């Protein structure tokens, strides 16, 4: 169940203002240059732009200290990729749901009729075209024309459904990767089907921007359709979709007769048990960028609703016990296993990785509505990538890849960016 803002009051008022949400977990800080965890406060500097700063806004709204959302408040709430870095840093020492409080503040503000004008473009597109990118719904299946794979929109069932995701359907470069992905899966002998023209958005940008009504419609219809198609596994290459399908879909109370997997998990398994051989020697130094939605944000979220009783005088004990996920159970190793299984490739880790990775800057609508901020964050991350000595970034989400490529276009010193599937394909 999706909780109300008032359910996060106890979280919001237990922030101790220690500013740890602005940095990676302190024990993992490795240099001054790359010691920012939160792209928002790193660029806009005012405290409200940090995780803790937003919690204070949520509490102020709940307690009536703020009666309406000013334009600057909307900037604060939405110049943020909802990457969850604040959440995993804070949770190193506390049991506060930072990210989900931010989701709930956004839903609260949106429900009250406040929104950035640009977001009207996204929601209009979602309601009319079933994707947030204002592309026509009728062209949804174009990416897969001529592809030798089962098209479930024409009926039929499949063990594995490949959900390409909006960007992979409409953006030519991402579509090419999606086609390669399907070819690899078919080549490995998997019973895979796509939904072609009938595929619709997973609802992740709608959810993250607070439009939970739109999200519920997409999520419910996806779950119904996937159940009806008899899928055992739903595989996607879009990390944004994957993160929300894993952490939010289960909260809708609908039976999901399938497991959600990211393409890197499936690919890593195929390579491990020999169904796909990576023989070519690529001899390259690469670094890997952990997409937030594939990593910390893909962990299962357990909403806590209970009451806090007092023992030992004023010591607070939550009844039932609050289950806290600290982000380290996300998908981190499969992409690395793929990279390491390519002959001649050396993986050089960046400073901010795994559950304290630094965002690429594209998430939760920022790429579409605040591209300058998206590119600023991408440049920060690219500089960190270069600091490892590698000149090739591997990632596992079309949004990260697209944002990096856009930023690199404006830099003189070129850096390569590949999806982990492309790397694998080059090595077959």
């Amino acid at each position, binding site marked *: 169940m999706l909780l109300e803002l008032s359910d996060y009051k106890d979280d919001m008022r237990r922030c101790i203002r220690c500013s740890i949400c602005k940095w990676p977990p302190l024990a993992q800080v490795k240099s001054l240059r790359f010691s920012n965890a939160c792209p928002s406060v790193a660029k806009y500097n005012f405290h409200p732009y940090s995780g803790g700063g937003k919690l204070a806004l949520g509490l102020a709204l709940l307690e009536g200290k703020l009666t309406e959302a000013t334009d600057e408040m909307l900037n604060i709430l939405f110049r943020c990729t909802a990457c969850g870095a604040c959440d995993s840093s804070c949770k190193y020492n506390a049991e506060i749901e930072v990210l989900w409080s931010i989701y709930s503040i956004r839903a609260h503000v949106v429900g009250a009729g406040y929104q950035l004008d640009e977001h009207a473009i996204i929601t209009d597109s979602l309601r009319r075209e079933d994707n947030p990118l204002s592309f026509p*719904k*009728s062209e949804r299946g174009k990416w897969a024309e001529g592809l030798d794979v089962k098209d479930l929109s*024409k*009926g039929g069932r499949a063990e594995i459904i490949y959900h390409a995701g909006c960007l992979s359907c409409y953006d030519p470069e991402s579509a090419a990767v999606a086609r390669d992905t399907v070819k690899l899966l078919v080549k490995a002998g998997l019973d895979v089907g796509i939904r072609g023209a009938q595929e619709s958005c997973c609802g992740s940008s709608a959810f993250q921007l607070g439009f939970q009504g739109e999200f519920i*419609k997409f999520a419910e*219809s996806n779950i119904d359709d996937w159940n*009806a198609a008899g899928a055992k596994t739903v595989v996607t290459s879009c990390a944004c979709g994957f993160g929300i399908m894993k952490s939010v879909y289960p909260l809708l109370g609908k039976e999901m007769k399938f497991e959600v997997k990211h393409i890197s998990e499936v690919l890593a398994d195929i390579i491990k048990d020999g169904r796909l051989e990576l023989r070519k020697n690529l001899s390259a130094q690469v670094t890997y960028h952990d997409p937030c939605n594939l990593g910390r944000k893909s962990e299962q979220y357990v909403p806590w609703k209970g009451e806090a009783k007092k023992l030992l005088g004023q010591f607070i004990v939550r009844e039932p016990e609050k289950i806290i996920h600290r982000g380290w159970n996300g998908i981190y190793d499969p992409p690395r296993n793929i990279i390491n299984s390519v002959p001649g490739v050396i993986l050089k880790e960046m400073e901010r990785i795994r559950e304290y990775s630094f965002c690429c800057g594209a998430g939760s609508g920022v790429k579409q509505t605040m591209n300058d901020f998206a590119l600023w964050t991408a440049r920060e991350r690219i500089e960190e990538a270069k600091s490892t000595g590698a000149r090739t970034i591997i990632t596992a989400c079309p949004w990260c890849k697209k944002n990096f490529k856009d930023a690199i276009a404006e830099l003189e010193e070129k850096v390569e960016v590949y999806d982990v599937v492309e790397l694998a394909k080059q090595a077959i």
Partner: protein
Amino acid sequence: MVSEKRTALIVAETTRGGNLAPITLELISCGHGISKNMGGDVAIAILAEEIGKAPEDAIAYGADRVFLAMSPILGVYKADAFLQALSPIIEQISPEAILMGQTDMGRDLAPRLAARLSTGLIPDCVDIKFEPASGSFRMTRPVFGYKALADFTSELKPQVVTLKSRTWKPLVPDRSRNGEIIEIDVSMNASQFKTRFVKRVKEDDTQMSLEDAEAIICGGRGLGDASGFSILDELAKALGGAVGASRPPCDAGWASASRQIGLTGKVVSPKLYIAVGLSGSSQHMAGCRDSKIIVAVNKDPEANIFSEAHYGVVGDYRKVIPHFINRIKQIKEK
């Protein structure tokens, strides 16, 4: 002569040739029910260019007094003309309630009439009761796209109401009933009105209109492609019904947008609604939730449509429907 009797006034709708449209019989039946527990009678205003059996039918189906207003200008419905013709009748009867259908005419005329009489209007009413204690009516209508129902009362008289079609059953006609027929002279000429009727174009002549069909077959995303609709057409012919579509087939171009049933399409409540290959989203159900009997054919047992249907078959429609049609034809021949 102002009658003390409490009267329910019906505004009749007639077909070409001056006969009563089906909705009018339902209105009389409802008016009859009200006037009984009001201790009053049922009056009906028939405004038309030519009159066939309308007055006699009206009495047979339960009307007590028939007011006739004849004029060539009234041959085609036009709000200003109908308002002008109605006002002397209303003045004469000062009815407790004025009933119209939630039809093209009712939706257009009722608000104008209520505005002129400075009285209340409850549109699309599904239930109306006279409450002797307060001497006023309690009415129920669907709101929020059929997701909710609302009850209203009003002190103002006459209470204007438009009734949802196929909610009241017409009375069994009794030719022996007697009633009074009163002619009202109406003098009006076209030049006095600011609006002018040009012409009426019948569309979709091949198919029955969705609003009037007794049975509707509605296809959804699950049909897979346009060919699915030919199977539904065959079923519609077998049942003498019409074919509709939910939003996805219209978006995909398998069916014309005018056939779309749902919140942003047409709202229907036929006797039988057969939903084939559609999940039953809230927007779609808003258009058909009030059908008498809903039958669902879908391959996903979990689809929401099954929670709103009376009968259901879980299976692939391409296998279920053809045999369903054959069986119907066999039954019809018997």
